[in-house]
């Protein structure tokens, strides 16, 4: 049983001219193993900033607050240490990495996270089986990471990594965006497998309620202007579906 605890987190984006712009304005959130927390909010409300700050993206700076995983100070860790501690971020826009094959990448990541090379005997078989479940062509293994992948392939590749790396807590940043219904179902099944088989705790960042038909959250948090402004159970998502974010955006503007 693991716990990710975010307390009064304030963070800024570092702009190209080195100035900073505050985005997160006091986020409080606790995620335990096996729980699904939907983070819903309008575009620009800071959802990706929250995910990237937890993952340690160099463009974001923590101004105050804390993030701990099972009591360990996440903010003191380097990006790779955070991943090895059991955090995973499925990115909204995964980058293409020329010259690094997906096969080599997956093996390197698995070795790093587990602290030992995966069993030669089962590794290839396991990866192929995981790819098959996500309906990913195994040719992807020979292609460079994300290079020339379609939007859907990139998202499936993120979920493939989730299933292979088996993190304690996964942050999924708009994994649903740009997917058609079939792809959305396939990707959701992958997330549900991680929940059931690995008891992963999930932060499911989304703008739309569509994915919540396939991945059932126990908790729904409404995010606006850099903080959680409302929370509740699945019924809150339904309410958002009907009413939209207007109420919260107007409240934040006041």
């Amino acid at each position: 049983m693991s716990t990710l605890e975010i307390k009064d987190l304030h963070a800024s984006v570092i702009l190209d001219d080195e100035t900073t712009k505050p985005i997160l304005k006091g986020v409080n959130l606790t995620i335990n193993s096996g729980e699904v927390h939907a983070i819903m909010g309008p575009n620009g409300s800071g959802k990706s900033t929250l995910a990237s700050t937890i993952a340690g993206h160099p463009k974001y700076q923590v101004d105050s607050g804390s993030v701990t995983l099972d009591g360990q100070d996440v903010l003191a860790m380097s990006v790779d240490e955070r991943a090895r501690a059991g955090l995973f971020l499925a990115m909204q826009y995964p980058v293409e990495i020329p010259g690094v094959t997906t096969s080599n990448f997956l093996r390197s990541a698995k070795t790093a996270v587990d602290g030992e090379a995966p069993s030669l005997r089962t590794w290839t078989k396991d990866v192929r089986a995981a790819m098959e479940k996500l309906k990913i062509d195994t040719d992807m293994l020979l292609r460079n990471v994300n290079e020339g992948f379609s939007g859907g392939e990139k998202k499936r590749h993120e979920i493939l990594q989730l299933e292979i790396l088996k993190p304690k807590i996964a942050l999924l940043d708009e994994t649903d965006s740009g997917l058609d219904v079939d792809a959305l179902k396939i990707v959701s099944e992958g997330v549900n497998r991680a929940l059931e088989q690995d008891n992963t705790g999930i932060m499911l960042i989304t703008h739309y309620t569509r994915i919540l038909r396939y991945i059932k959250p126990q908790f729904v948090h409404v995010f606006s202007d850099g903080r959680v402004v409302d929370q509740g159970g699945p019924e809150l998502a339904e309410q958002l579906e009907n009413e939209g974010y207007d109420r919260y955006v107007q409240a934040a503007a006041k």
Partner: protein
Amino acid sequence: MSTTDQTARDTQDTSEEVGGVPTGEDRVAIPGMSQEGETLQEGRNQAGEPEIRHTQHGDISGVPDSSRAGRFTSYDVADFPPLTSTLEDWRFTPLKRLRGLDDAALDGPAPAVSVTGGDAVEVTSVPRDDARIGSAGIPEDRVSANAWSSFREATVISIPRDAEVQEPLIVTFTGESDRPAAQHVVIDAGENSRALVVLRHVGTAVLSQNVEFSVSDGASLTVVSLQEWTDDSVHASSQQARLGKDATFKHVLVSLGGDLVRVTPSTRFTATGGDVAMYGLTFVDEGQHLESRLFVDHSVPRCKSRVNYKSALQGENAHGVWVGDVLIRAEAEGTDTYELNRNLILNDGPRMDSVPNLEIETGLIAGAGHASTTGQLDDEHLYYLMSRGIPEDQARRLVVRGFLFEIIQQVGVEALEEQLRASLEDELARTES
């Protein structure tokens, strides 16, 4: 527009990348970087005018024309002016570190030649008056001419006509002296032959070397020139190729070891249908000067050239130089050429000079372009890899390997590619420790 204006404009176009790239903050990230350069179609620039371009040169006495078209050549070292850093050809080279290759009597022992593989290939040592010597080129600089004046015997590697050489021929040059020496090598590929020759330079040497590649009609020759000298070695190598009708030549230059290594590969066409691909990979460590200056002389119609050089640089006073001169003469209609140079600077300290020069004297070409980029590793690439638990040093190595291995893949012989990958791993391990 006058020629002078055009030169100025061209110089400006690529000024971000050429002439000494700073190692400051404003470098472009690469790969996946923004890319300077231009692709000209049918010899037209964006204004629709034919592109005519002359390269800027220092004032070289005795040289009739400042463009590469008029580059002076001679077998006699005395015909070349003494080297100074004002000479265009030498402006990036630390002349003091040449250890006399330009001036001294080159009477040290030349690296020993040993040969393995290459069934059907004949390797002989011949005297200076052998007819094959001089078949592919005349020295274009003083250091090359000094070697030409000094060598005693030449190594001739002869691939019989119609021979299909299956096994790569590995020629190892083992240096065992730091006294300035001269060496001459001729590779003569007979008509319609196919072969792959590896020139592997190891040990310690202070060497000026002329290597000639005579690629006869219909022949296909691949040459891999590998510089793996000790850190105190100095090596200047003029590697000149002459291609016959429908000949194919692939040249892969890999410079890893040496204090100063300056390789000047050039390709000339004598008939239509010639096809040259020139690849380069350099890994420049602390204190090293690794320079590649290539020249492709399109002087006949309907030939093709592709150039792709990459380098990685790391450490204080690591200095890489790439100069790519491509000349399309007036008579070379239907030419198709593209040259690319990409450089990855791994930390603060190295300096890279990258100068693409494309001179076009005819509007009737199939295509011509060049690009040059110098930048650092992309933070977003490192972040993505690290966010999957991969430690930073390993993430950097993955990306650098990926960047450089593209060139190694051009060799096309698995056993050799594996050796090269291993050599590169040594370099990477060395620069990280």
